[in-house]
């Protein structure tokens, strides 16, 4: 009983230890891959001041579907009409999960750093090549794996500029979507320095102009007056019944970095790179992040000074025009460009997103963002190829939520599991592994899964009680036979052991009365098998009357 109790406790202990180790391992895994952060920001589906709900709402109001991508950009490969899709990456707050995958030259690699795995980056590049539009808002996050494929690189250090919002603080930087920096006149933007967008205000009648400008011209040619509701994707330019396209954009950015051009890893399909916005020539970058600007070369890590790129557009076509095949990527050196506080500054100042301490000045962030959407998603006449003003029937904006830190375990775990699912059905190596896994699963089911055996009564009383077989050879020995025979002689004559032992040999010989057996008893010699058999036969019949 005690032994049973011990083994029971041991079994319970072992089970406890097993599940404990399993939980610790799973917990360790989850801690590494599930990052719980502060209440999430930059989400298109939350309506805090630092989320993108106003932007998403505007898109929905224009009749464009919006989706969120919580798993992986690998899904972009599955889109049927990428030309009418815009993929918005607003802040890459977390690194990718390092899983093995095939690199371009069919070597198994692990994604090591910077946000997106090679497979995901390839999916984004393919998406752009097929005509999709990507907007990347980033400052200090992990977007460089994407950026490098398009020949640019985020500096990931804070940029300070003299062109900032004095009513707020130096973190709020003004910039204009134009090739030369706009300047300040006191505490406000000097309107004399404001120019036009470098691509959207070209003299080219079609490909060098913004699609809203083209559509406005078409409307003007027809003499059509349109209401704001009918203005469709160009409603942000609607004035007095007509579309008055204006290509100047006074953008307000917050906590920005800069974007360098680095073509070392650029994909060959990315033909055109265009700088769309720059800082003033007196901007500085705090490279070492110590909060001080030290430009002297004597310092170990001197900070940078000069003019830096704040927005770059990379295209898979020569002109970047929506009338050409091939998409485009807009890189903005600020992850918070479209947050509700700046994008919907009127609502913010009115207290729509919470208490207001300082008011956000008017800006053109909304106009710029909607113009990007208009250019990317406006439907074209299938016959003439001219813009229709309305979004394409398949138009869609996808917000990348897969790299946003979630505020609770369930959401983040869901995202992670969804990522794994997409990884295993989208990545080449993972597909191979999945096939092997499914094969093993089926084999396992085939081998291990048994139906319960049918019940059957088995009648079994087989039992053999064996004796000691070792004694058989002993009973064939001459001395044993001799002993058995003498016992028989003694018993037949009713003698005790003592009487028998003290009996003279002559008397014993007379008692035996068989010369062969007498010889057997008194001669100490070896007998052949035949002789022994004959003797045993004689012993057996000896004494019978």
């Amino acid at each position, binding site marked *: 009983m005690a032994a049973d109790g011990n083994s029971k406790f041991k079994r319970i202990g072992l089970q406890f230890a097993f599940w404990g180790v399993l939980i610790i391992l799973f917990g360790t895994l989850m801690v590494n891959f599930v990052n719980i952060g502060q209440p999430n920001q930059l989400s298109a589906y939350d309506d805090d001041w630092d989320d993108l709900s106003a932007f998403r709402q505007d898109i929905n109001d224009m009749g464009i579907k919006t989706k969120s991508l919580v798993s992986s950009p690998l899904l972009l490969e*599955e889109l049927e009409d990428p030309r009418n899709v815009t993929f918005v990456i607003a802040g890459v707050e977390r690194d990718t999960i390092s899983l093995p995958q095939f690199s371009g030259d069919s070597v198994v690699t692990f994604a090591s750093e910077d946000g997106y795995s090679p497979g995901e980056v390839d999916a984004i590049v393919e998406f752009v090549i097929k005509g999709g539009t990507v907007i990347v808002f980033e400052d200090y996050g992990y977007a460089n794996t994407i950026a490098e494929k398009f020949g640019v690189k985020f500096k990931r250090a804070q940029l300070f500029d003299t062109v900032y919002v004095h009513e707020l603080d130096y973190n709020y930087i003004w910039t204009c979507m134009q090739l030369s920096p706009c300047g300040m006149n006191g505490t406000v933007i000097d309107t004399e320095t404001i120019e036009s967008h470098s691509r959207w205000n070209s003299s080219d009648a079609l490909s060098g102009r913004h699609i809203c400008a083209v559509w406005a011209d078409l409307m003007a040619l027809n003499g059509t007056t349109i209401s704001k509701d009918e203005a469709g994707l160009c409603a942000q330019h609607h004035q007095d019944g007509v579309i008055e396209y204006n290509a100047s954009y006074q953008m307000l950015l917050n906590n920005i970095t800069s974007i360098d051009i680095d073509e070392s890893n650029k994909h060959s399909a990315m033909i055109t790179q265009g700088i769309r916005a720059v800082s003033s020539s007196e901007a500085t970058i705090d490279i070492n992040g110590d909060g001080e600007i030290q430009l002297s070369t004597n310092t170990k890590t001197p900070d940078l000074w000069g003019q830096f790129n704040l927005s770059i557009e990379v295209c898979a076509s020569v002109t970047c025009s929506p009338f050409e095949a091939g998409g485009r990527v807009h890189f903005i050196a600020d992850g918070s460009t479209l947050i509700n506080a700046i994008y919907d500054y009127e609502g913010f100042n009115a207290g729509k997103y919470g208490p207001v301490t300082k008011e956000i000045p008017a800006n053109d962030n909304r106009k710029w963002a909607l113009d990007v959407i208009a250019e990317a998603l406006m439907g074209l006449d299938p016959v003439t190829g001219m813009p229709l003003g309305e979004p394409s029937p398949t138009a869609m904006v996808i917000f990348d939520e897969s790299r946003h830190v979630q505020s609770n375990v369930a959401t983040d775990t869901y995202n992670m599991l969804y990522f794994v*699912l997409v990884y*295993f*059905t*989208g990545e080449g190596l993972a*597909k191979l592994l*999945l096939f092997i896994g*499914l094969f093993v*699963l*089926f084999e396992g*089911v085939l081998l291990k*899964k*048994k*139906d*319960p055996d049918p*019940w059957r*009564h*088995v*009648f*079994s*009383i*087989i*039992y*053999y*009680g*064996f*004796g000691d*077989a070792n*004694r*058989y*050879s002993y*009973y*064939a020995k001459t001395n*044993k*036979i001799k002993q*058995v*025979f003498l*016992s*028989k002689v003694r*018993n*037949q004559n*009713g003698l005790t052991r003592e009487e028998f032992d003290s009996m003279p040999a002559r008397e014993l010989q007379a008692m035996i009365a068989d010369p062969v057996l007498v010889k057997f008893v008194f001669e100490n010699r070896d007998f052949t098998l035949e002789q*022994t*058999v004959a003797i*045993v*036969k004689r*012993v*057996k019949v000896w004494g019978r009357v």
Partner: protein
Amino acid sequence: MWTRKASFTFAGGISLILIGMMISNHQMMILGLSFVAFIVANSWISGHGDVEVQRTLSADNLYKGDDLYVELLVTNRSSRRTQTLEVYDNVPHEMKLRSGLNQMKMNLGPGESARIRYVLRCPLRGHFSIGPVSLRYRNTFNLSVEEMFVDHHSDMIVFPQLRDVEEAFIRSRTPKMYTGATTLRTPGPGTEFYSLREYVPGDPFKNINWKAFARTGDLMINEKCRDAVTDLYIILDSRDIARIGTVLKNPLEMGTVAAASLANFFLQRRDSVSLIIYDEKLSYLPPDTGDKQHFKILSSLAGVAPKGAMPLQAVTNSLAARFSRGSPIFIISSCEGDGTVPAAIRDLVGRGHEVTVLSPSSIDFERLVSRIPRMSYEVLKIERQNRMTSLAGFGSQVIDWMPDMDLSQALLQVRGY
């Protein structure tokens, strides 16, 4: 628990979903999803084992080789159908199904019952238990199966067979024992008239002789002769060495048959019979008469198993004081592997007991299962004969019992060694 079919369906469903995702084939994904949904939906439609069982046996006690009729009544107590329910009555593997089946598949509606009837043959003596009742229920599509059991047991005792030995005792001169009810010429409880005496307070009224009262005017009591019975002792060797042979033919099995038959014979003659079983310990059933003693003896014999190596002399020494003077003693033993047998028998005979040794020939039982070289067998037989001779020399009756010999036949063949 899922069946193999369910596992395959589920694994197939998951595979179809994943492969469908890989190759962007929605039909394949929907098919896979249907498979998984089918499994999930089926997991809600399961059977149950909430049934009541009641087992009826034709007898609780029976003799080896008899048939046992079993009826199992299964009733669905629930308000739901059982779905496919398999019922299996667990029968000891020592019992043989003679007719019928101890299992049945059924689908019982609420309150419905089903009966399972089968007949068992019990070729081995022992204490047995039928049960528990195992239940296995599956859902309609055989996708899930659950097992449980109803802890319902029916215990029974299979006694050793009883052989008729009366003829042997009539025809044989030996062993001749003056057993059975013997009238003693002393007053006491009995059946035969002894004398008349005057009534004393406390005498039962039924013993008053009314004719004598009418004649004499005094209350007179009929006194009876005391009936005396013989105490008979049966000593059974249940040591480990008694297991040699086959399951049905070994010294212990034959010994239990002999002990039961002898006890039955002597109890019918109104003797007091005592049973002593020695193996690794000593089990002593004091002498007594009647059906109750018969049942006790048979129950004890049903449960004996070969074990231990207690010497016979230890048994006789410890019980010598309990043996009634001059009472007959039956020793049922192969007399193998115990050097104290001659001394023990000599002591018993010396104390005036009439000792009969019924000795199953263990070397011949061993020959049933082992290939013994002829010469060794002959020498072993001679040695055994020597042993029997020496026991007979001490004054006991010795019976060398061969495996193929019936008990009454063996009792007739008492040899004068």
